[in-house]
């Protein structure tokens, strides 16, 4: 299988699809909210090691997440998450282990609840058989470039955990 990296210029084969997709969510203009995007960028830098994995910066893509899930065996989401933990904490969980505390106004395509998107994909029969979420507790969410030091200092730890995830078989 050919590796696809949709960071910057996407020049790969138009039709091939990898069985695993890693989706980084967030907005790097809002400080720690951008952790998912920063981590998927880091992983994509060594994409050649993962020929059957596509790394996608979905940003604040909302409903566009749906089409990235179709036809995959596994999806790994990386996102900033309020989990009630210490800032900087990373937790690996599956969608069924949590319930969303978000209230949606259905204002726009960008407003999305990841858990609801996953649920939609399941209802449509388009969800991967394995879905894993890595949540990172933020310290600050506000208009600012760059992560807060408490998260920035732990980037290598996060990358190591994610690389372990991509190196192993299903744990569910």
């Amino acid at each position, binding site marked *: 299988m050919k590796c696809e990296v*949709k960071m910057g*210029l996407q020049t790969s084969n*138009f039709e091939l699809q990898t069985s695993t997709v890693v989706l980084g969510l967030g907005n790097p203009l809002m400080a720690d*909210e951008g952790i998912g995007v920063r981590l998927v960028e880091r992983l994509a830098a060594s994409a050649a090691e993962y020929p059957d994995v596509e790394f996608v910066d979905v940003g604040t893509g909302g409903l566009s997440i749906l089409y990235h899930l179709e036809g995959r065996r596994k999806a790994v989401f990386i*996102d900033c998450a309020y989990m009630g933990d210490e800032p900087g904490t990373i937790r690996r969980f599956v969608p069924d*282990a949590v*319930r969303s505390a978000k209230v949606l106004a259905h204002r726009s*395509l960008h407003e999305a609840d990841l*858990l609801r998107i996953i649920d939609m994909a399941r209802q449509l029969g388009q969800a991967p058989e394995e879905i894993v979420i890595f949540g990172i507790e*933020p310290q600050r969410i506000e208009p600012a470039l760059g992560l807060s030091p408490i998260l920035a200092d732990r980037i290598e730890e996060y990358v190591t955990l994610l690389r372990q995830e991509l190196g192993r078989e299903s744990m569910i």
Partner: protein
Amino acid sequence: MSKGTVNINVHHVTRIEGHGNIVLNANNGKIEKLEWQVPEAPRFFEAMVRGRSYEDIQTIVTRICGICSITHSLASTKAVENAIGVKVSEQADKVRILMHYSEQLQSHVLHVGYLAAPDFFGVPSVVPLVGMAPDAVKTIIGLHRLANEWSDLIAGRTTHPVTLKPGGLTKFPTEKELRALQERLKKCLPDLKVVAEVVLSVAGNIPKFDRPTEYVALKQTNPPTYTFYHGDITSTDYDGAVAINDWKTVANEYVSDQSTAKWTKWHRDSYAVGALARFNNNAEHLSPTAQAVAKMFGLEKGNCNPYMNTVAQLVEAVHVVEVSIQMIDELLTKGIKPETVKVSPKAGKASGCVEAPRGILFHEYEFDRKGHCVGADICIPTNQNHANIQKDFEALVPQILDEPEDQIRLKLEMLVRSYDPCVSCSTHMLDVKFVR
């Protein structure tokens, strides 16, 4: 509450991109206040580009929008090229149009499928549609994917293109990639027909409301084309054509107390832009399948029901796919050839214009002899629709004032959504509680 007494304050309207409010206060059939308000803060892009090189303009102004980023890129690049006197090759011109069509498909599919369809089915969002019309939702998701990957291929990525530069493109798709794209476009035409049939099945829920309106769009006569990219400015009230550099004589922007966005008017006190405007000016040049879809809905030139803009978008989605299949044939017949373009700065001032999914878009720049920007002016389609939305409100509300308040609110919200107004983004993060 007695009939004709309503107090509606929608703050903000949902399922549009950006923030707009609807205010309606009526007492015993007398309308006391009726406003379409736009409270968005100004964004100062025209100031941001001052002092920047002509080479940087597109990279900056594409950030005006996350939905129409290709459109802003093309309008600004055309304006820059006009200002410094650069022509692009026929090959680059075709590939740019192909890029532009990817955004038309993407934007129209999202609006029809995710934003407008819930109104037709009487639900608050696309989420319940998964249970009501799963096959249609799957089809929309597939089309969304195709449109985004089409943008990836030609523009370098889905949002904020990186392959455009004054004088041409930094990268052309390979012939192999174009053939793969063409195959997928051919396969998606039946999918678009499925979407059209599903929308037709609920078309009875599209409100019936006509208001004679001036519709403004690009018009291309040589060759006659259903154009999104080349041509001059025309309208349904005007037989001639206005040169792009004279767009200010069309827009006639002015300030309204109820809006932070400027309003526009030409031959009447407002005009409309967008899919229905293009249709009303150019429908005879639609592709055969697009014409057939228009016929399914009884959509004919001269239609002045703003709610039908969504149907016109569906028609255009079919059109751009069908003509792109043909354009790829033309590109492949000649073969993709490498291009090297050298562009030198010079002093000049000019405009560029393309049709955004939601209507005609104008960019104007002036450069000094070193190619530094000394002035900019941008007029986006949603601005051009604001006054028309207000005039629609004023014509519609007296006709529906006796209806239940919820019904009035829904019709006003649907009317705003039918224009597919577009503005901005916010933060998106998980907020969860562990249950095990």
